[in-house]
């Protein structure tokens, strides 16, 4: 594999990594506030459908994006009511939302478009297009740096740049702002926060709204930037890989970036390594690479490489004493 092969590989790695990264950061806000979110997958799926359907109906992809965020926030609010107000089981609520998205998208999609759950293909100008960074063509002539700038850094949709920007923003919010401090505290020791007169409920609601927004963007990316329509179960487990990435990243934003890029490379490699013979080990079955993110996460969770310690109060409903 030469240099000219590596750039396309990294390029597709980025495309695989972006929805993971957005969903992973979404999960980070939720879990840091103490709410387990198994429903990242469902929110992404619902958002992907809303984006593609509204873009197809109105011809305006940004309305689609708004709809995606709206749907994702609504689902996140169902999760909030179930897990914050009703103190229900957060894992079950997530499972239910995943099913709701799986059935609901096809039910509505089939009723509107009569195409068995898929939405019509979007034209090029109805999708979120690629952005060419300034001087891409000119710098592209420079050896080594040129192709990296022209092909790898330039030419992605705005969501890709947003996703990468969301990492330092999240790190800053979490570590340098009052909201971030409280968010981390509410996931570790909600009672301390309550004693200090800060509303645990409100903070958790705020966190889940952010989770909804980020999952919404991730879903819109899948159906209107990376793809050109919605198809049944198009997230195909990405929400769960994002969840694995979140644990692998030990609930930290910068780690989330590296983990999602690693998982992105694994996804890209999976397609490229099909049928490739390696020295000594021979051909690696694609399923081995498919399973790699999950296996790595299990190994990490078991404490064989480092230790992943979740926020202390995660998954426990907060009961305010009267």
């Amino acid at each position, binding site marked *: 594999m030469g240099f000219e092969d590596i750039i396309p590989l990294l390029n597709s790695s980025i495309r695989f990594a972006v929805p993971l990264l957005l969903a992973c950061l979404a999960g980070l806000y939720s879990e840091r506030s103490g709410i*387990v979110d*198994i429903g990242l997958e469902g929110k992404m799926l619902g958002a992907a459908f809303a984006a593609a359907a509204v873009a197809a109906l109105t011809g305006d992809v940004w309305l689609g994006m708004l709809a995606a965020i709206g749907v994702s926030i609504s689902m996140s609010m*169902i999760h909030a*009511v*179930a*897990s914050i107000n*009703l*103190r*229900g*089981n*957060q*894992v*079950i*609520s997530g*499972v*239910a*939302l*995943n*099913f*709701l998205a*799986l*059935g*609901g998208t*096809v*039910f509505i999609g*089939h*009723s509107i478009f009569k195409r068995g*759950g898929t939405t019509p293909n979007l034209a090029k100008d109805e999708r979120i297009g690629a952005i060419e960074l300034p001087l891409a063509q000119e710098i592209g002539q420079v050896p080594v740096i040129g192709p990296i700038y022209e092909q790898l850094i330039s030419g992605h949709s705005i969501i890709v740049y947003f996703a990468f920007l969301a990492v330092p923003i999240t790190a800053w919010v979490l570590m340098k702002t009052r909201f971030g401090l409280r968010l981390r505290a509410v996931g570790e020791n909600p009672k301390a926060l309550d004693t200090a007169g800060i509303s645990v409920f409100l903070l958790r609601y705020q966190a889940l709204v952010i989770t909804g927004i980020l999952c919404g963007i991730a879903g819109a990316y899948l159906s209107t930037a990376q793809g050109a329509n919605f198809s049944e179960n198009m997230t195909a*487990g990405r929400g*769960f890989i994002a*969840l*694995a990435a979140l*644990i692998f990243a030990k609930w930290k934003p910068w780690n989330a970036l590296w983990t999602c890029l690693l998982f992105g490379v694994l996804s890209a490699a999976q397609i490229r390594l099909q049928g490739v013979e390696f020295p000594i080990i021979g051909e690696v*079955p694609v*399923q*081995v690479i*498919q*399973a790699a993110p*999950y*296996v790595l*996460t*299990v190994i990490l*969770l*078991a*404490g*064989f490489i480092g230790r992943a310690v*979740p926020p202390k109060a995660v998954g426990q409903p907060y009961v305010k004493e009267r």
Partner: protein
Amino acid sequence: MSARQPLPKWATNILMPAMNVLLALFVGGLAVAVIGEDPIEAMRVLAYGAFGSGYNLGFTLHYATSLTFTGLAVAIAFHAGLFNIGGEGQAYVAGLGAIMMALWLDQTHWVFVLIGATVGATTLGAIWAAIPGYLQAKRGSHIVITTIMFNFIASAFMSYMLAQVITNPGANAETRTIAETGRIPLLSEYFVFFKHSPVNIMLIFGILALIGVYILVWRTKLGFKIRTLGMNPDAARYAGISAVSIIVITMAIAGALAGMMAVNEAVSVQKRLVVGYVQGFGFIGIAVAFMGRAHPVGIALAAILFGALYQGGVELAFVMPAVPSELVVVIQALVILFSGAMDQMFKPVLERVFGAFRTRSSSTETEEA
């Protein structure tokens, strides 16, 4: 006065689940009305499709059997305080053990196939579930996450096995079909009533599993240890109960139960193993366990309900093509949401209602006295 009263048992165990199901059906009906179809007709088709004839009932019972196994797998782990979300993967991997034994023995007699497949399925299912159990007990890795990861690892592992190792050349990622001599009989061969529906001997196994789990959990020493650990891990430790062994054993039993689905679906009905044969039944098992309050009687009822929804949905797609059969998935999702996560929704209201009745009856009593 509307003072809140703790609810009687029958209200929490029967009335509340029933209200949750009705609410889910109502919301599902609204969805049907929104797309301009007749919700009453849709529900009628759904009910007829599930129970209308011996043939339809046979399908419902067949699905209910699978769901009984996956529901029990969640329930028994729940009694030990473990959330086993990995029934999907456990049933999938168990399919490998079941089909390998079945294909090995299929020239003999179906009784041997049945025994062999059961042993194969329960063994592999138990191993696949015991690993996350061990990791939870020994290494402290959270079982919810580990079992989710194991579902995906199972899916990759099984598609490798079915595509490369035990594949049937020429077919698309599936095993060869079990020979005629080794086919487990359907109930319809003894009761014409069921026509050619897939309900088979595993229905009896399902009932036995329900009874077995009841005895195990509430009538044996092991069950007492399991429940103690689930209710109060500290007390269990002081009582000298080894959390590690109880967790691993409970998970192994859970995996074995989930694995039984393979004998019911893959061996008895599909007669071969195909990619992704579990089709979400492992996840629906979570709903079955929670709706059934982790009790065998409740699980039996919930399994029949979800089996009926599944089978009714197939009929619905047939009779009313304008109503997408995914309606059933939506209703299932709502049942899971209402009964599993939003259980407290009706409770305050019901407590008030019951409180009102209680105070009235108690005040009449005092008047009489």
